[in-house]
């Protein structure tokens, strides 16, 4: 059926549901059906990474998944990286401290990729950092301060853990 159907999934730990035609991407569903506008549209063909979200814990392109495919799955978006009161979480604060952003448009996807990196590799090398964010295009920063931010986030997490 190409008609809209109900899609239920977990977003940032909360059960959510909304209506989606099969052709509605997860990106558009998150933004326009669930109102989570932190995830951004950059190319809609899987190159730029602005729409990166965690899907069952793995970083993926939300523009390359249809919302109907997310039925029953767990999605985490940039909003989910914030503390419970909505204030920035530790990775987000590291990006602020290093000014690892400018216009903020690629930032949510970048943060999600970094979250995926640090949960698997708490103390990443610079090569591992590049590998993790290689699929996120940033047009403002030239990446240098983003690398600084990831290093800082890792160092802070390490400090917090000891």
């Amino acid at each position: 059926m190409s008609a809209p159907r109900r899609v239920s999934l977990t977003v940032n730990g909360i059960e959510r549901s909304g209506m989606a035609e099969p052709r509605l991407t997860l990106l558009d569903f998150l933004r326009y059906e669930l109102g989570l506008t932190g995830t951004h549209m950059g190319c809609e063909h899987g190159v730029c990474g602005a729409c990166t979200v965690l899907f069952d814990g793995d970083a993926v392109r939300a523009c390359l998944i249809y919302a109907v495919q997310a039925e029953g799955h767990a999605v985490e978006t940039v909003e989910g990286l914030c503390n419970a009161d909505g204030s920035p979480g530790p990775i987000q604060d590291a990006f602020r401290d290093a000014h690892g952003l400018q216009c903020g448009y690629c930032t949510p996807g970048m943060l999600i990729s970094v979250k995926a990196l640090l949960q698997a590799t708490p103390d990443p090398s610079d090569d591992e950092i590049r590998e993790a964010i290689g699929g996120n295009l940033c047009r403002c920063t030239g990446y240098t301060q983003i690398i600084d931010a990831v290093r800082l986030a890792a160092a802070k997490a390490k400090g917090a853990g000891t």
Partner: protein
Amino acid sequence: MRETARSNLLHVSRKRRVKEDKRFVSGTGTYVQDVVPKGCLHVAVLPSPYPRAKIVAIDSAKAEALPGVRAVVTGEELAAHTMPIYQGLNLPNVRWRPLAHEMTRYAGEWVVAVAADSVHVAEDALELIAVDYEPLSPILDPELAMAEDAPLVHPDHGTNVLYRGEFNWGPVDDDFAAADRTLSFRVRWGRSSTVPIETFGVLASWHAGTDTLDIWASIQMPKYAEQIAAALKIPLNDVRVHNDVDVGGAYGVKRGIKHTVLVGYLSRKLGAPVRLIEDRLVNLAGGDAHGPDRIFDTEVAFSENGTIASMKIRALDDAGAYPGRGPYQLAKPISAIVGPYRINSVRYEPISVTSNKCGQVPVRGFGQAPTNYMIETAVDKVADALGLDRIEVRRRNFIDREQFPYMIPSGTEYDSGDYHAVLDKVLELAKYDDLLERRERRRAEGMLAGVGIATCLEPSGGNTMFEYLMNPQAEITTFMESCQVRVDSHGRITGIMGTGTSGQGHETLVATILGEELEREPDEIRVIHADSRAGFPTVAPVASRMAIMLGGAAAGAAQKLKERIIRIAAHNLGTTPDAVEYSAGAVRDSADPARKLDWEEICFIAHNQTHKMPEGIEPGLQAYHILQVPGGGRLPDEHDRVQLYPCFAFQAHIPFVELDPGTGKVTINEYYIAHDCGTVINPDIVRGMVIGGVAQGIGAALYEKFSYDPDGQFISGTFADYIMPSVFEVPYVEDVEHCTPSPLTSHGQKGTGEGGYLGAPAAIASAVNDALRPRGVSIHELPMRMADIEDLLNGGD
């Protein structure tokens, strides 16, 4: 003259979190795509499949019948109800409209627009529209476009040449006649631009009850509201542009006039909010957002010791089908037409032609990046011709620090600089001698390796006096920026700016300057963006001008506010303003410092206690300042000499590249920059601006090009074809600051938004050619793609 930044600064130049970053990292910025009012209609546009064709007939009946479609509009309908869009040059017969009328002029040009309940349905409807075209042969090459018998892009204009000028500044012929040596060369800057990750988007909502057209747009455009009102034929104060929309990157290209005219028209026609969010295909093919596409033919006259006396420059630029403000990108570089060098005379022949390609838009640096690539190529070639070191030739030609202010032949005075010191700093940062050793080692191992050098001047502060040079009807000399400051009855400070922002940290800039002047904590200062009807006059956050202009306006407003605070306090201390001292918001009696009024007390008085206010001071605590560009205000003299831009920042770049001779692939291993933008307001913002510009310059140098095939079909329609650098292509950039304050600005600051992009393409080209030197070949066309380089090396067999 060697100055250093004021050492007693409280907040300026200190590391501080960027205010805007908090909402951006939280995913709570508000971009235009995030504004979706109830009942909003969505627009999709039908691109022309032909680069040049007559539109014979359009049948949209099936599209109109599709459920969910609210309107189908053609170029004919739009032309009947709107005015052509204003362009920079005076070109009455080059009519630029949102939708093609009678004729299409590039593949990807919008022909029909559909407004529907969803963008999905709008796109479905596009497939139901039948357009009968009569294809014509296109003109794609700018040199061929100038030929007598070339097909005409705009037949009514009578020629494909939009502008042709000749400027002679200084004794060019004498300098050439007297020179020891001359050389000539051609370089070509490919059609690229800065392509933000956010496409252009706009939402227009007409309210008949209040006669207001509300506009939310991803915009960075001077006189935007004026142009919308003119094209839609409505009063300017019917238009309300919401400047509090976050813009997902702009770098010059977010102009969107045609998009806005289209949705403005549709919103008025349909009585509903209407939005057009470019998808990436529309953005790349038909967003009118391509950059300069330029051929330079340059002659250089120089002496045996490497001193450059004169240059003759012909710059031919392909503005595409609808030039907009594009041609002015030939004129702005006149502001630094001799770069940082003591070149005595210049002949400059800018030519702008139209072709069957997408239209040109202002790009970061406004034409300065291609021009700097040409100038730096000239210097490298002089060094090559004489067998001199590239660094040494630069040193010999630099303007000396004692020579500032320095007047260049075209009539612009450079405010300040110390180019030798900045160059020395980058050499030290790069450990230049070790770098050369590393290069030799890699060469010995069979790799091609090269070290690049480029410097660049960044004209900043932004007047647009260059317009008058190309179009005497543009007799405009006012280029202001404004800031208001208000202190509420609880003592909290709010700064109000009149434009939007797109990642440059303008809110942080205003808060830092207000905090500096008022000696209050910048983190507690809120900065907001007035809409276009509520704000004071501004131009736009373009032209590397906001640190100077918005910063200067904020400083001016703060000083006025402080004066008022002092008067109120002095009155209540029973003394005169010159007998009190202001410190961190409190005002003390100089004679008896124990007698004082705190900030909160003064604020309370100002808002609530007329009986305690001095005569002639109005209630409340607020001030505004409107700053005109320093040094602006005069038209060019009879020799076309004029002050273009007030302040001149400087950078020196050194990249180290390796080049795989088998595949042609260039890898940038190291990159060093020294930059001098005078007093730094926020060091993190400056560093980000510089390095971000470098990454875009790397893209322009090696990867990015809007390509058309020989039939005029656009072949760079996706991000798989228009290739922008990822973190793998951009090295970790090492940078160092230098500070030569500007004598013209509030805190000695200069602009820094463009320099990285101005220097990097020249620096990468210099490095690639250094790598190629042992093979006896060189490349002078950007982008230098791997296949092109490989062909140079291996194509002979």
